[in-house]
């Protein structure tokens, strides 16, 4: 009978109408400013710099400029710190990220060998200030390792473990360079 298909459709919308009052599967709105969805750990928005301890001195970044080079839209700008004699130090004097260009692709995170740049989960950054509000400088970018743990617990723990292992290896190497024999013994001891 003609018209039956229309009635079937009407039935479906009516079901959704009434369902929206009792069935959470049919009322899917998350009323944003009051309710916020928990982001998954992997969620990413913009990069930030991780520091341990001191917000300036504790930055993990060594100003190697790999991320600057690899960043597809070229939104990172790094100038390394120089000491009095003009020698470049392993520390960024300027670290700017233009979030008005950043596309959040995470490639800087992937290529960083020092686990110093990570992806943030902050997305409420809309602003009326075109020039001031959209360039993140070093102080705005620096966020503590605790914050990193807070937003990405599993990943941060893994990174910490890796860094600790790395440091240990470095120390062991340094010790080995100083006095070969005891260091070798130390490494042997560590093995289960």
């Amino acid at each position: 009978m003609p018209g039956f298909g229309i009635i079937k459709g009407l039935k479906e919308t009516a079901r959704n109408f009434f369902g929206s009052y009792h069935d959470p599967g049919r009322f899917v709105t998350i009323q944003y400013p009051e309710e916020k969805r928990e982001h998954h750990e992997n969620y990413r928005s913009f990069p930030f710099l991780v520091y341990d301890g001191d917000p300036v001195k504790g930055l993990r970044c060594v100003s190697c400029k790999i991320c600057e080079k690899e960043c597809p839209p070229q939104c990172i700008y790094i100038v390394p710190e120089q000491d009095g004699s003009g020698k470049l130090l392993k520390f960024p004097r300027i670290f700017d990220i233009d979030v008005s260009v950043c596309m959040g692709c995470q490639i800087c995170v992937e290529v960083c060998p020092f686990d110093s740049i990570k992806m943030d989960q902050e997305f409420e950054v809309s602003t009326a200030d075109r020039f001031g509000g959209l360039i993140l400088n070093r102080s705005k970018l620096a966020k503590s390792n605790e914050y990193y743990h807070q937003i990405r617990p599993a990943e941060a723990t893994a990174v910490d473990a890796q860094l600790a292992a790395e440091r240990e290896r470095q120390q062991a190497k340094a010790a080995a360079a100083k006095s070969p024999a005891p260091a070798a013994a130390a490494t042997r001891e560590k093995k289960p």
Partner: protein
Amino acid sequence: MTPWSTLLALAGDATGSWLAQLKNLATHPWVVNLVAMAVILGANAAFFAVITLLERKGLGRIQNRPGPNRAGPFGILQPAADGIKMITKEDIVPERADQLVHFLAPLVMLAPITLALAVLPYGPQLVAVNLDAGVLFFFAIGTAGELAAFMAGWSSRNKYSLLGAMRAIAQMISFELPLVLSTLVVIMMTGSMSLVEIVAGQGSAAWGLPGWNIFTPWGLAGFLIFLTAAAAESNRSPFDLPEGESEIIGGFMTEYSGFKYAVFFMAEYFGMFAVSGLGITLFLGGWHAPFPFLEWVPGIFWYVAKLVALVFGFIWIRGTLPRLRADQLMNFSWKFLMPLALLNFATAILWHATAGWQFPGAWLCRWLVCFGIVAGAFTGLGRAMLRRRQVGPRIYRYAS
């Protein structure tokens, strides 16, 4: 003396001497008419505000979301915010538009519909103008909307506006016919063109059931035809071609901004209230309560309840159905609704002729026979229309 003046007079008597002195002035026909106009406009405008909110919330619920809920508690002030914004918005008239016609079009749209609203009986004694030929007046005045649509489309000097206007004219004229034909049945059966009398004729309830026209086979068919044609007349989905967003932007309203657009918008809703009101009056018993034991509730309540129900039906349909194409719309009107409406006459005549049947179960028998005719015609015509266009469900095969 109209009910309004009666009310005023009563109020004057009750409150005291200074108001009583106003009584003479208050019963002056000019004052009475002005007050009636103000009440109709005010009440409908308020109702319009409520309905826009209801529509946005209802559509939202159909679509699994809450709809406006920030402006005021539960979003009830949303129409107010829209109104404030609309009124204060800049009014743009395109440079090369026909300035005068462009200005007049919204007014020409709104004014006749307001007049049409004046002849509807909202309750016992609650009719602004009780005309003997109310139905005739309603249709005569209602057609002016087509003129307004064309004025708007022509004067805007926009191709989409023009397309929209052309569509609006074609559509409204085509659906005028089934609309009028479906009401003629009621006029024929009631024997009056006065809306007040038509409502009065539906009051008598048999066996505690309402005596509304919709409970007769010709009334049911007439009502469905009327509803379809009314949706088309008021440009509601699935017949919202003249302003089909996805095709021709805003149709004849494309170039209107600010308050003029709001007037168009309002006129469109007023138009919907008017035809729905006519439908209620003709088929749904007007202000009558569904059952005699509910008669103590004021008639205006029933009228508004029925109006809200009808409008909600329109919203429901709008939330579900896609729109037809222009030529399909014409086909639908001329080759489906028209024959059906004509056949409905025959059914009504049959119903009238068999009124004298006396054997037990005669009423049911009459009902079934008449309904069978209409339903059979509906199915046959529908099938034929779909088959002619080779439209139907398909079976798909898979690659081996």
